[in-house]
C-alpha cells in the first residue's frame, strides 16, 4: 500500500486517531487507552499486516512523554509510525505491547531505563543499561553535574 | 666404557658394572636411580621448553606470522624466559578450594608423564624400563593422567573447571579404548609386547609398510585417539578456551599452571614417540629388504636421531591438526569414538589377524 492508500485506510478504520502525513511516513497518534487494541488490529488486519516492529523510541516532549513505534509489514512493505503520548510527565505509564510484537519487551525496557516511562503489565521491567537509582538521563530535566560538562 | 653413538647397550651395561664394582650394592643402586631420575628430569624439561617453542613457531607458520623473535636469536630463549617468569609468579590458591586435591592434581599429571616416559626406547640400550609387557604398561599408566585432570577440575571450586574436568574424564576414558586396541593390532603384527622387541621386529621393514592397510588404519586411529588423549585441539574441549575460558586449569597460577602446560606438551611427545616406535620403527633406520646399499647409507644416521626425527614429524602432524580444525562438541567426540573408531578398530583387528595368519604381509 502506498502512503496515500494507507492514509485512506487508516482514516476509515481508526476515526478517533489523529492521522497526519509526516515527512516520510504516515503518522498516527492514538489514545493510550486504545493502544493495544489499535496495535493488534494493525498487525492482524489482512490489509495492513504490520508484523515487524522496527524501532520503538521514547521521546521527552515538553509536556508529556511520547512513545513512537515504527512498524512495517513484511508482506506489503509499507511502513507507518504509531504514536502515543502519556497524559503527563508525573508517573508516566503506558500499556506494554509485548503481546503484539515480541521485541517490544526489550525496547520498552530501554525506554524505561533511559526515560522512566513505566509499561503496565510488562513482565520484566528492570533497568537495562544503568544501575538502579541512577535517574533517567534522557529526560530533559536530568542534571548530573559530575559526569556532564556543559559548554 | 665403549661409548658408541649407534648402540648404547654396551655403554649402559658397562656403566652399570662399573658402579657395582666401585660401590656397595646399596649405594650403586641409589646412585643409578638418582642418575636416571636426573636424566629423565632433564629430558622432560628440555623437551617441554623446546616443544613449546616449536609449537609457537609452527603455529606462527600456519598463520603466516613469525612467532617469537625477540628473546635470543629467532626467539630461541623465549620459552626459557617464560619459564623463569612462571617460576616467579605468585601461587594463588582460591578461597574454598579443596587444598589437598588442588595441590595434588598437577603432580599426578607430571608423575604419570614420567612413568610413561620410562618405557620409551630412545635408542638401542637407551631405555628406562624394558618390560616384556611394555605396551600394556604404557596404556595402563597413561590413563592415570585423567585423574589429575579430574581432580583439578573438581577441587578448583569453579564451575568452568568442573565442566572441563568432567568433559575430559568422559573423553579420555573413551579414547583409552581406541589407543589400546590400535596398539593391540600392532602387537598382533609384532608378536610381542616388549618395545625393544617391537623395534627389533622392524629391522627389515617398518610396520606401517609391512602391515599395509590394517597398519595404516591403525596408525590413523592411533593418531586421532592420541590427539584426543592428550587433550589437544581439535579435541581440546577440556580447556576449550572460547567456551570454558581455560577449563580445568582456570584457577591454577604460576608453576602449578606451568606443570599442566609442560605436561600437555610432553604427553604429546610421548604419544608421537609411541606412534613412531610402533608404526615407524622407533630408532630403527629406514630399511627396505633387498636394497642393501640404501640400507647401509641409512644406517649411518644414528638411531637416536632417527627416533627424534620421527617423533617430531608426528608432533608436527598433531600440531597441524590443532591449527587447522575447529573444536568438536562433547557428544560428537563420544560419537566419533563409539560409532566410528571402535567399530573400525574391531574390524581392523580381525583384518590384521587374518593377514598375519595368512602371511599376507611384506
Amino acid at each position: 500500500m502506498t502512503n496515500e492508500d494507507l492514509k485512506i485506510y487508516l482514516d476509515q478504520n481508526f476515526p478517533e486517531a489523529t492521522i497526519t502525513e509526516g515527512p516520510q511516513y504516515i503518522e498516527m497518534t492514538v489514545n493510550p487507552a486504545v493502544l493495544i487494541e489499535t496495535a493488534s488490529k494493525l498487525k492482524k488486519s489482512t490489509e495492513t499486516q504490520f508484523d515487524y516492529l522496527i524501532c520503538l523510541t521514547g521521546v521527552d516532549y515538553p509536556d508529556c512523554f511520547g512513545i513512537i513505534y515504527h512498524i512495517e509489514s513484511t508482506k506489503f512493505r509499507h511502513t507507518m509510525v504509531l504514536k502515543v503520548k502519556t497524559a503527563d510527565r508525573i508517573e508516566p505509564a503506558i500499556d506494554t505491547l509485548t503481546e503484539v510484537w515480541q521485541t517490544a519487551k526489550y525496547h520498552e525496557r530501554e525506554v524505561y531505563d533511559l526515560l522512566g516511562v513505566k509499561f503496565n503489565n510488562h513482565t520484566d521491567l528492570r533497568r537495562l543499561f544503568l544501575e538502579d537509582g541512577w535517574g533517567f538521563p534522557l529526560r530533559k530535566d536530568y542534571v548530573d553535574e559530575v559526569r556532564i560538562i556543559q559548554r | 666404557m665403549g661409548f658408541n653413538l649407534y648402540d648404547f647397550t654396551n655403554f649402559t651395561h658397562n656403566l652399570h658394572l662399573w658402579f657395582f664394582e666401585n660401590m656397595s650394592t646399596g649405594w650403586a643402586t641409589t646412585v643409578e636411580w638418582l642418575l636416571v631420575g636426573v636424566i629423565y628430569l632433564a629430558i622432560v624439561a628440555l623437551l617441554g621448553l623446546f616443544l613449546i617453542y616449536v609449537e609457537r613457531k609452527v603455529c606462527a607458520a600456519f598463520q603466516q606470522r613469525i612467532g617469537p623473535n625477540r628473546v635470543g636469536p629467532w626467539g630461541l630463549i623465549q620459552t626459557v624466559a617464560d619459564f623463569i617468569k612462571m617460576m616467579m609468579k605468585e601461587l594463588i590458591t582460591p578461597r574454598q578450594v579443596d587444598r589437598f586435591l588442588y595441590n595434588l592434581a598437577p603432580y599426578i599429571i607430571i608423575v604419570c608423564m614420567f612413568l610413561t616416559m620410562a618405557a620409551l626406547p630412545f635408542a638401542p640400550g637407551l631405555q628406562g624400563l624394558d618390560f616384556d609387557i611394555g605396551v600394556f604398561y604404557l596404556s595402563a599408566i597413561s590413563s592415570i593422567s585423567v585423574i589429575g585432570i579430574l581432580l583439578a577440575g573438581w577441587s578448583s571450586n569453579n564451575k568452568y573447571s568442573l565442566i572441563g574436568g568432567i568433559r575430559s574424564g568422559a573423553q579420555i576414558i573413551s579414547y583409552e579404548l581406541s589407543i589400546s586396541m590400535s596398539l593391540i593390532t600392532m602387537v598382533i603384527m609384532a608378536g610381542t609386547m616388549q618395545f625393544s622387541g617391537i623395534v627389533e621386529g622392524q629391522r627389515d621393514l617398518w610396520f606401517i609398510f609391512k602391515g599395509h592397510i590394517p597398519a595404516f588404519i591403525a596408525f590413523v586411529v592411533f593418531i586421532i585417539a592420541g590427539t584426543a588423549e592428550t587433550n589437544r585441539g581439535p579435541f581440546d574441549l577440556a580447556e576449550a578456551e572460547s567456551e570454558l575460558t581455560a577449563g580445568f586449569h582456570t584457577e591454577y597460577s604460576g608453576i602449578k599452571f606451568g606443570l599442566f602446560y609442560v605436561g600437555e606438551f610432553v604427553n604429546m611427545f610421548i604419544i608421537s614417540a609411541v606412534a613412531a616406535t610402533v608404526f615407524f620403527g622407533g630408532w630403527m633406520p629406514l630399511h627396505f629388504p633387498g636394497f642393501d646399499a640404501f640400507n647401509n647409507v641409512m644406517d649411518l644416521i644414528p638411531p637416536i636421531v632417527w627416533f627424534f626425527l620421527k617423533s617430531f614429524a608426528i608432533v608436527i602432524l598433531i600440531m597441524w591438526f590443532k591449527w587447522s580444525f575447529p573444536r568438536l562438541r562433547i557428544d560428537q567426540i563420544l560419537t566419533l569414538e563409539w560409532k566410528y573408531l571402535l567399530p573400525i578398530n574391531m574390524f581392523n583387528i580381525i583384518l590384521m589377524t587374518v593377514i598375519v595368519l595368512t602371511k599376507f604381509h611384506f
Partner: protein
Amino acid sequence: MSEIKEILINSDNLETDEYSVNMGPQHPSTHGVLRLLVTLEGEKVLNVKPYIGYIHSGIEKMCESLAYNQIIHLTDRMDYLSAHMNNEAVCLCVENALQVEVPDRVKYIRTIMDELMRISSHQLWWSAYGMDMGAQTALFYGMRDREMILDIFEETFGARITLNYNTPGGVMFDIHPNFQKRVKDFIKYFRKILPEYDRLLSGNIIFTERTKNNGFLTVEDAIAYGVTGPSGRASGFSCDVRKHHPYSAYPFVKFNEILATEGDTYARYYCRILEMYESLNIIEQLIDNIPEGDYAVKLKGVVKLPEGEYYQRVETSKGDFGVFIVSDGKKNPYRVKFRSPGFSNLFALNSMVKGYKIADLIAIMGSLDLVIPDIDR
C-alpha cells in the same frame, strides 16, 4: 551396592540440579563486555539471560548537545565494524530532512564504501567465528585479508576503523587516485581467497556437524524479535533494506538478496559468506562507473533541520540500522535514537539456545555477529 543399583534403575530418584554460570563480562567468546547468565543442567543450556550496559556510553544523550555534523563521529563508535554505514544513516537522514539531493558521485562512493565495509566486517566476523569454534588459524587469515580493505580505507579516509568520512551533503574528501586500482586488486585477490575460507571452515566436517541442525530460528520468531541482517535472512525473513527501501546507489545496481530457509546456525554462517560474494559483485558493477562531479554539496555552516521527526534506515553488516531524529528547528537535535540491529538480535538468543549444549551456545551467539558497543550504545 543394591541401593545404588536401585537409584540408578529408577532414574527419577537421581537428584539432578540446575546451576547457573556467569558467562562474561570477561569471557573470550562474548567479544566484549556482554554478560550472560546461563542456567545449565549438565552441559545442556536451559535458559540464557543477557545483562548489558557495561559499556553504555550515552551516545544518544551526547548527540542532544552536538551539531549534526558532529554527531557522525559518535556513530563510528557504536558498531565500529560498520562505521561507514552508521555515518551514512545520519547523513541520509539529515539530507532527507533538508531535501538536499547529493551528486551521483557521492552516491557511488558511498555505496562502494558500504560494501567494502560490509566485506571487512564479515571477514572479521568470520575470523572471530572460527576462533569461537576453536579454529584459531581462521582468525589470522580473516585479519590478513581485512588488512587490505583497511589499507584502502586508510589511503582514502585517513583512518582505518573510525572513519568519519561522510558529512551531511556528501563526503569529506574525494577518493584517492589509487582507490580504483586498489579496489580492483582487492577484488581479484579476494575472489581467489574466498574458496579457501570454504575449504578451511564451511566444508569441514567438524564445523558442519557442529553448526548444522541447531540454533533454529523460525521466520515468525525472526520477525517477532526483529532479527535482521544475515541472521534474519538465514531464517527466510526478507529484510534487506538495500532491496526494499533502496538508498544511495543501490537502485542502480543489480544484486540478489541472500535468503536461506533453514534458519540454523550454518545457514546464518553461510549467508554471510555468500554476502561477501554479493558485495564483490556490487563493487564490480560500480567501481568503473564512478561519475565525475562534486564530492559534496555545499551546505550552510550551521545545519538546522526543519521541525519534525525523521527516520532513516540503512542496511549495516549486522542488519537493519535506523536513525530517528526529532528536530525542534535548532542546530542541535531534540532527540536522537539509534535503532541498532545487535540489540534486537541479542534478545532472540534465548529462544534459540534452549536445549542445546554450551558449545552450541557459543556457536549460536557467534553466528548472530554481536558487537557490544552497538548493543549498549
